[in-house]
């Protein structure tokens, strides 16, 4: 974990005893985790374990039923809407879908947060947007609309938009899902480079084991509403947890069963029709 000058862990985000439910379904039961400043922290786990939910809790879009989420020492659930919006200006989020505004061009999408939150002259906004688009390799696509972009391009535009206000932290929601090898390689390099060059804190939510372990500084593995293991990528690879081993080696059966639990044994189900 990152240490500040006094040797105390310097976490930008701290999640303490968070409990969260959607309807009757329990998503999190007493989850604790830390996101170190200036590092890439990966949150891994199978689909449907609430990884994206965690990002929404950190950003204050949702509030936990119990427990606390701190961003830079401030209790997120207790912030007023204005304070929350001020805090969100310090973080960017890359949605799985890109979440680009479909009626705006690529240029206007990246300019959107600048026009909303700054009083910069249009000429300066133009320069900033072109610099952000150049950083993701899409300066030439500025006149296109989201419908004209491939999935990988849309995610890169969304990344340019997420860094438009120079945030301290970026949350990546499944950045590698559905990407071809070239797009994936580009995204991997971009995430690593943003972290190395700008010193951004990054949270990468993903179930793509190889890619995520390749760029993360620290990894949390989540399943069934709790953190089942955490450590550096090497520690996760060497984990003794059978669950973690099944997950990182993509084994079909193990602690996570291949079969969804059925109420009747297989033979009984088949014979039932003959009765």
């Amino acid at each position: 974990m990152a240490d500040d000058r006094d040797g105390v862990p310097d976490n930008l985000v701290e999640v303490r005893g968070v409990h969260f439910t959607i309807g009757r379904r329990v998503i999190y039961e007493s989850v604790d985790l830390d996101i170190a400043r200036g590092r890439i922290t990966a949150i891994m786990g199978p689909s449907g374990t609430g990884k994206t939910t965690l990002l929404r809790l950190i950003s204050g879009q949702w509030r936990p039923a119990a427990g606390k989420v701190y961003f830079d020492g401030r209790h997120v659930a207790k912030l007023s809407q204005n304070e929350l919006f001020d805090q969100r200006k310090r973080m960017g989020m890359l949605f799985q879908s890109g979440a680009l505004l479909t009626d705006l061009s690529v240029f206007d999408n990246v300019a959107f947060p600048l026009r909303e939150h700054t009083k910069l002259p249009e000429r300066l906004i133009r320069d900033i947007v072109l610099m952000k688009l150049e950083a993701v390799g899409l300066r030439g696509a500025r006149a296109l609309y989201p419908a004209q972009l491939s999935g990988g391009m849309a995610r890169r535009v969304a990344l340019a938009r997420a860094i438009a206000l120079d945030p301290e932290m970026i949350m990546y929601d499944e950045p590698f899902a559905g990407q071809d090898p070239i797009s994936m390689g580009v995204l991997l390099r971009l995430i690593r480079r943003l972290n190395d060059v700008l010193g951004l804190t990054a949270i990468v939510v993903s179930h793509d084991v190889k890619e995520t372990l390749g760029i993360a500084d620290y990894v949390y593995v989540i399943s069934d509403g709790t953190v089942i293991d955490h450590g550096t990528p090497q520690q996760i690879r060497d984990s003794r947890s059978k669950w973690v081993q099944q997950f990182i080696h993509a084994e079909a059966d193990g602690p996570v069963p291949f079969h969804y639990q059925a109420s009747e044994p297989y033979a009984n189900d088949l014979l039932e029709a003959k009765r």
Partner: protein
Amino acid sequence: MSALQRGFNTTTSWIADLGRGALFLLRILMSLPSLLLKPRLLVEQIYSVGVLSLVIVVVAGIFVGMVLALSGYRLLVGFGATEALGTSVALVVVRELGPVVTGLLFAGRAGSALAAEIGLMKATDQLSGMEMMAVDPVKRIVAPRFLAGVIALPLLTSIFCVMAIGAGGGYFVGVDMLGVDAGSYWSGIQSNVDFGEDIVNIFLKSGVFGAIITWVAVYQGYHAPPTSEGVSRATTNTVVIASLAILGANLMLTAVLFGSN
């Protein structure tokens, strides 16, 4: 679950929905002053919900005016009172049919489009994306659409009325085709349609209808489940609820505005 229990659950769900809708309306109203800083958003939406609804309103106005003149003439000719055709067409259009028919058309054309647009923005994470960029979607997306509806519907209603009464609609059938005297057609309208009572009330009624339709539409879209089925249901609900609400509100407004006469 018994029928009684189901009925109770449906009723409480309706009341809860109404409460959420009222709170949402309050949030929209509190967001309206922010439009003063960004009038371009409002102008864009007036174009989208108003100007783009013009064709359907103009065509419907012409046909409604023609039908009213035709059936009105058949009724009046039996009493030898065809000179009252202009008055009868004008009063029916101005007091009732204009605001109600334009409102129903607006609910079908603009209301459904608003619900689908906002619902799809939600389903594709555009609203969440805005929130994450510290932009309030109610201020940026919902409030301009709501106010545009309140402004556009009275204007569309007045255009509908002009089309129904004027040269393309009632006048064309009554005067040009059926031979009613042009002077009595216009003078009847001039002497019987009161500015303060009728014309001002058109704007009042249609302003209320505009608020109801866009309120229902933006609420349904904003709270739609983020799935294709959810958006489709929100669109249908908008047209059904807004249409029924207009008819109900029309009865109450007519009783209040014209009930004492």
